[in-house]
Structures are given as C-alpha cells and as structure tokens.
C-alpha cells in the first residue's frame, strides 16, 4: 500500500516536472526558430527579405532534445557513481548539456547565415549573444526537469531502464511533444501576421515573414513572448499528460495479471484520447470550417 502511495506521489511530481519541461522546451525552440518555422526563416533572405530572426537548425526537435537529455542523464549518472549528491549530479549534467546546446545553437546560426551570403543576409552578433543565452536558459529548465523526472522513475519507481536510456525515451517524447503541440501556435501564425488571417501562405508570400516589431526590427526573443502564452503551456500540458498517464497506469495496473493490466490500461487510455481528438476535430471543422472568400458587397 505504501509503495502505491509513494508511486502516486512520484507520478504527480513527475507529471508536474514534465509540464514545466514542455513549456520551456517549446519556448526555447520557438525563440531559436528550430523545427518547422525554420524553413521560412531560411527562405526569407533568398526572396529578398533580410531579417534579424535567429536561424537555428541543429536538427528536428526530437533528436536534438534526445541528445541534450541523454547526455545530461549520462553525466549525472557518472557523477552519482563518483558519490556526488544526486541533486548536484543532475545539475552538473544539465549544465554540461546546456553548454553543448548553446554551442550547437551558435554554430548553426553562424553556419546557415554565412551560407546565405549570396543574398546579403548579414550575421548579427548582438542577436547571437542575446538570443543564444535566452534559449540556453529555457533549455536548462527543460533539461533539468526532464532529467529529474527520469531520476525519480529510475530510483523511486525502480524502472528497469538505465538512466541514460530513460533519457533517450523521455528526451524524444519531450521534443516530439514540443514540436507537435507547440509549433502550430507559432509557425505560420507568428511569421505571417502581415498576411490575411486564415488565408494560408500563398506561394507569392513565401519568405515574406514579419520582420518588424512595434519598436523597430524584430528579433526572435519576441517569439518567446508570443508563444509563451499558448504554445508553451499547450506543450507543457501535452508532455505532462504523457508522463502522468504513463507512470499512473504503470504504478496502479502493473501488479494486475502479470503486467498485462498496465498494457490494457495503456490501450484504453489511447482509445479514449482518440475519441476525444476525433470529437474536437469534427467540432472545430464544423465551427470554423474551411476558408471562404469574404463576401463582396453587391
């Protein structure tokens, strides 16, 4: 009984940590223009629109976050092996992972921007300094919380996977949650505010991204302010629910039918979510419908 109560407590804590991780991850990738929105940032100078948006392409978010979280887990494990306090070890691991993330971010910005020299896109050192440090701060929060959740799963819940392997699983899930849930709130919406809402992006507007903010030329830090409102919390909710449901079904149903109870619970959870998703999709289509041309006055 006591084990189940501790398990539920850890489940709640890990879910909360994951919610913070998801929010920070999405904000980080949007400020750095990683993932889907990056293609338009890359395209803009080629269409004649030079800009001050960060052009960061380390890889897709899932592989990138797999690396940061896995390496933080590995380093934390090594420090724990050397009898360093677990909290300190996790911090050391996260610091090193954030350092690697920052280095990858700067080399990606410099490389991509320098390769666009033909189109007159300059390298902005002030953008490099200000935006990289902000993404590193967000990455630190995302990595630290995820590694802590992995550590709890490994030590308290006695997960059979080693710490770095849990890092692979949850880093990948974190990147995927941020990429799939967070980006729709950013991507085209933020970059094409100069286009008519709901029009999609016509080919003629390709690369014509919004380059000016209220107080002059826009940099990517502004994207964090924009997406922290909806994209970040949505990603946080998504990743938090993934971790919460995953642990909750394991803790409660693992003892039933030799572990098969947890499998059945997982399938039931997936089915319930599929029904909810379908309902929301149909509801949204009915209410907002496809884009229609504005009625012209006769």
């Amino acid at each position, binding site marked *: 009984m006591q084990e189940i109560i501790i398990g539920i407590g850890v489940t709640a804590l890990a879910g909360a940590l994951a919610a913070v991780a998801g929010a920070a991850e999405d904000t980080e990738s949007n400020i750095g223009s990683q993932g889907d929105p990056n293609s338009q940032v*890359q395209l803009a100078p080629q269409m*004649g*629109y*030079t*800009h*001050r948006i960060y052009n960061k*392409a*380390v*890889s*897709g978010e899932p*592989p*990138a976050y*797999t*690396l940061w979280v*896995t*390496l933080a*887990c*590995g*380093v934390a*494990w*090594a*420090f724990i*092996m*050397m009898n360093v306090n677990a909290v300190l070890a996790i911090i050391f691991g996260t610091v*090193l992972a954030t350092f*690697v993330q920052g*280095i*990858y971010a700067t*080399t*990606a910005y*410099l*490389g*991509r*921007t*320098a*390769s*666009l*020299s*033909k*189109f*007159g*896109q*300059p*390298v*902005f*050192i*002030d953008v490099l300094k200000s935006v990289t440090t902000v993404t590193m701060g967000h990455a630190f929060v995302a990595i630290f919380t995820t590694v802590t959740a992995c550590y709890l799963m490994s030590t308290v819940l006695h997960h059979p*996977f*080693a*710490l*770095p*392997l849990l*890092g*692979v699983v949850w880093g990948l899930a974190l990147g995927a949650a941020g990429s799939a849930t967070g980006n729709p709130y950013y991507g085209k919406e933020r970059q094409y505010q100069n286009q008519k809402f709901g029009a999609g992006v016509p080919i003629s507007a390709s690369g014509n991204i919004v380059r000016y903010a209220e107080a*002059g*030329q826009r940099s990517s830090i502004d994207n964090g302010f924009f997406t922290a409102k909806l994209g970040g919390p949505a990603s946080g909710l998504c990743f938090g629910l993934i971790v919460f449901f995953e642990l909750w079904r394991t803790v409660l149903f693992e003892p039933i039918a030799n572990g098969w109870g947890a499998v059945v619970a997982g399938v039931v959870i997936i089915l319930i979510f599929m029904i909810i998703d379908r309902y929301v999709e149909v509801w949204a289509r009915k209410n907002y419908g496809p884009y229609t041309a504005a009625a012209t006055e006769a």
Partner: protein
Amino acid sequence: MSVKVEASHDGIPHNKVMAMGLILALVSLYIAVAGAFAGYDYLAFFGGIAAVGALIWGNSTIKKLCSYGIGTGVPSAGMLAFGSGVIAMLFAAKLAVISPFLVPIAGLVIALIVGLVLGWISNSVLNMKIPVMTRSIAELAAVGSVALMGLTVVATGHVSFSEITAFNIDILGITVSFYDVSYIGAGIIAVSFMLGAIALQHPFNACLGPGEKQDRTNMLAIECGFLSMIVMAVISFAFVSLVAAWISLVIGLIGWFVSYKKYFALSKRDAAAWLDAKPFSDAEE
C-alpha cells in the same frame, strides 16, 4: 529519380577526404587499443581523435548524398549511420577474445557490409533511386561504427566486449564484476550514440546553402567531434583512471576551443556582413 543539385564546389575531392578521415581514425584507434593492450589507459584520448577523423569523412559523405535534395533527410542520415554502426561495433567487440587488434578493422568491415545491405534495400527495394545511395549508406555505417568505437575508447579505455559490459571493483582483494554499472549496462552507449549521430549530421546541416564552403564545414565537423569528446571525457571519470580522464578532458577542451575559434573566423570570412547591434537595410528599398 532525384535530380542532383551541386551544394558547392569542393576544393578537395570526396575520395581524398574519405581517405584522410579513415586513416586518421584507424591509426588513432589502433594507438588507443595498443595502449589498452599494454595495460594503461592514458592513450584513451586517441579515441576522440578517431571520432574526429570519422566525422570529417562522414560529413563529406552526407554532403554528397544530400546533394540529391533530401533536405530533412540530413538528421536521419546521422541516426541511420549510428544505428547500423552500433550493430557492427558490438559484433566486432565480441572478436576481442581472439585479439583486441582485430576490433577496429572488423568493426569497419562489418559496418560496410551492414551498410551495403541497408543501402541496397533503400535504393532498390524502397525505390529511392539515388545513384550514390548504396555506397553512401555503406560509408555512413562505417563512419558510425568507427566514431562509436572512438567515443567508447574515450569513455572506458577499451573496445573489447568483456570490458564494456563489466565494471570491475576490487573488494578485499577479490575482483567483483558488475554488469549494471558498466558502459553498456548503464546505458552510456546511448550517450555516445546520440552525441555521434547529432555531431555527424550537424556540420553539413548547419552550413547548407549556396554559400557553403568545404573548409568551414570541415572545421565544424572537427569542432563537433571535440565537443562530443569533452562530454565523453567527463563521463570517463567514472570508468578510467583519474589521470587518463583529465588528459582526455584537457585535450578535448583545447581541441574544441581552437576549432570553435577557427570556425568563427571562417564564418566571418564567408558572411555577407558581420554586424553588431546594427539594423539591417534592404537592398531593394
């Protein structure tokens, strides 16, 4: 049938880059293995040099493969390379019971075979029809295997299967082996895998565009290699002797710092302009 798009004109042809990277990687690996064979681990840092050599080669291959317009396929190529590389490495590590000197070359050969099969499947069965596909995937698998062996040596000082699956502790004069806290048992191999896979795809992915230059991309490959080496050196404190770990860490840090600075200089050379706190001005306006 994909259309070939020339990324940039290379100063050094691919075959020459491949030969240089391969020789650097194999020679370094053999020095590290010889060190381990002689009974001390101070030469473990040569594993990092081997990874750098492999990454230079792999980058040139990715550039060649990705000139056939598979943009989002660049990160996947890194994953595929290390996925097939890890199979080859584990297989080869088993051969250390015959001789540890067999492992590096066996890893290379097995990876080439695994890669050829995978390349044939993607090109002929999945019908991707890219002329350089089969050869490139074979090369990438070999790069993955060699880089993984290099990073393994940095972390543990060994490449043999018995050493990377056991952690030996002397308790009251008796040596006890633990699997759970070994390089493979503790999952540290996953860290090497991810470090290598991202480092392999990053240089070309980060530098792609019409202004891509071979020397700048190669410098970034070297930087990524040393950066991965720093992380493995920190982890190696749990496995190798204190002196060996410090040697790896210091060499990794110096190599990374020098290449990072050089990469900044090359980016400054290639950039259209290098501005600090200045707004852009549109050419057409």
